């Protein structure tokens, strides 16, 4: 059994023995395991009928990986993302992210996990329509109580890095789909998360914009940012460092 300890931030963490595959890469930060999903299952009740959305999923993700998850509609991709993102509770199994067992984090600490460890990118961008691009990016840092000056500077720098330096004060309705998605990426990066979860991030954009978004993901990955992308698009999957396929709630690692 792994030794259970309480981390500095109050989360329960597990000190686990390094796997064989990691021993050879000790000292190589890029090869560090950032997330381990063990026997993760999710069963919904549809009336009295149990629906197994995810069955015993096991995934190991290393730092800086750009991992694609593919599969047909209803296969369990989004469920997996929701479970890793702590938006839903698993029926069984474990998710160890950056040393924290997400499945045993108390409900009231989950917002903190989402703030500090996870960044979300949604298919429909999910920007707050009444806020400007800059304010949308700042929003994530507001909840982390980042001082106003610092969060403004950081949000501006992120947007500028993503080529939106001249769109800072534009509302989402004044931005194109690709621009909105880049604002969404900047927001996901704002709190320097251990993992970015992207749910169909190119689902609503044209191929040119798709390519630019994938390019951003690759650049981020090269800088050490771990990204997990759920996608239907083989062109996106092709650019990822690894592809997982889900069928009927079961994962196959390629």
């Amino acid at each position, binding site marked *: 059994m792994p030794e259970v300890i309480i981390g500095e931030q109050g989360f329960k963490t597990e000190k686990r023995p390094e796997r064989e595959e990691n021993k050879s890469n000790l000292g190589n930060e890029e090869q560090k395991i950032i997330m381990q999903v063990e026997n993760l299952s999710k069963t919904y009740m549809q009336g009295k009928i149990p629906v197994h959305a995810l069955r015993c999923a096991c995934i190991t993700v290393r730092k800086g990986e750009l991992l694609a998850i593919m599969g047909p509609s209803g296969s369990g991709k989004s469920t997996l993302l*929701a479970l890793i*993102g702590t*938006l*839903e509770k698993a029926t069984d199994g474990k998710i160890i992210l950056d040393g924290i067992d997400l499945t045993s984090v108390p409900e*009231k600490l989950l*917002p*903190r996990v*989402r*703030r*500090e460890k996870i960044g*979300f990118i*949604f298919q429909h961008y*999910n*920007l*707050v*329509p*009444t*806020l400007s691009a800059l304010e949308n990016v700042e*929003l*994530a840092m*507001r*909840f*982390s109580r980042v001082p106003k000056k610092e969060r403004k500077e950081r949000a501006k720098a992120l947007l500028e890095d993503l080529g939106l330096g001249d769109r800072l004060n534009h509302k989402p309705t004044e931005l194109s789909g690709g621009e909105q998605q880049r604002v969404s990426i900047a*927001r996901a990066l704002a*709190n320097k998360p251990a993992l970015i979860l992207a749910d169909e991030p190119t689902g609503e954009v044209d191929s040119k914009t798709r390519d630019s978004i994938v390019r951003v993901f690759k650049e981020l990955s090269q800088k050490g940012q771990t990204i997990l992308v759920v996608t239907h698009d083989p062109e996106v999957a092709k650019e990822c460092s690894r592809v997982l396929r889900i069928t009927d709630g079961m994962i196959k690692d390629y």
Partner: protein
Amino acid sequence: MFDLIIRNITNRKIRSALTICGIALGIFAVIVMGAMSENFHQTFERSMSVTSDKIRVFAESGVFGGGLTDDKVNDVLRVAGVKDAYGLLMTTFDEDKLGMTGKQILGVPPEKSSVALYPVELKAGRFLNPGDSYSVVVGNNIKREYGLEIGSKFEIHDKYFTVVGILDYTGSIFDNAVIIPLETAQNLYSVGNSVSYIFAVPDERVDAEMLSKRIELSVKGTSTLSPGELEVQARQSFMIFSVITISSGLLAAIIGGLCVMNTMLMSVAERTREFGILKAIGAETRDILLLTLGEASLMGLLGGILGIIVGVGAVQIMNAWLATTRIVLFLITPRLLIIAMLFALLIGALSGLYPAYRASKMSPMEALKHA
């Protein structure tokens, strides 16, 4: 967070404005009805303070039952512990208006007029003197309404009286009193030697409550009202009046509160997805609560300020208009303003409580699926 709250309010300008107007209307009602109650309260307190040392002796059948005559004054005077006693006749000044203006004729023995009215002081002239018959002392409001001066002629019940004294402003019932000699009043209204009630002044160091009981037992056919009993009765009447006035104001304010709740519920329903996003990016339950409750409270605050401004303005206008008829009906006090403001905030916050609870309890996943 405050800037987000303001932004949420200003983004829905018309709806927010209507909600704020709803609250303002409620607070306006609280101010107007409260000002009426405050005026009544002040009059009551001052009236109590100028008559609190006397025991009232009535006929057993009550003030309007008759049967109490001058003769009883001597019986009361004979009771041990009574320092002084005198009868008073009280009737409405303007019978055609059924006394709605609050003006009263007070028939007092001339030699007792200064003690009967104590501690009310004269602004000008003198109290009634023995031997006066068609002389009158008037309260401050009567003086202002009829433009009376010392020596003016004043018509009462088809007879002309000479104004010999004008009372200082008291804020009590005496501001609307017309004080004439008791005998003249009895003749004027053809009531023989009847009096409405007898004032019994207790000796110093005599317990007024005990003396009151003693008078009732010693003087047949009378009932008494001690200063303590009078205060209790008056307070009860005041409470009933206050409850009626304040509750009608509160009712309006509660309707305003429902307005806020409706707006907030609509807003929360419309922003379900937004709350899902906020939760997904790490908003705590308290952040969501703060956003929604803050929005409702701010609308309550703005509604309160608007309601108070309009309410105070309306009260000033009504008081100015009523001043032409020498009636003071409303009184704005700091206490009323504070209560109205706190009430507006409370209404706003309470109305936002349920929508805020709903917003904070949303599952982020469900909220994100919301169209």
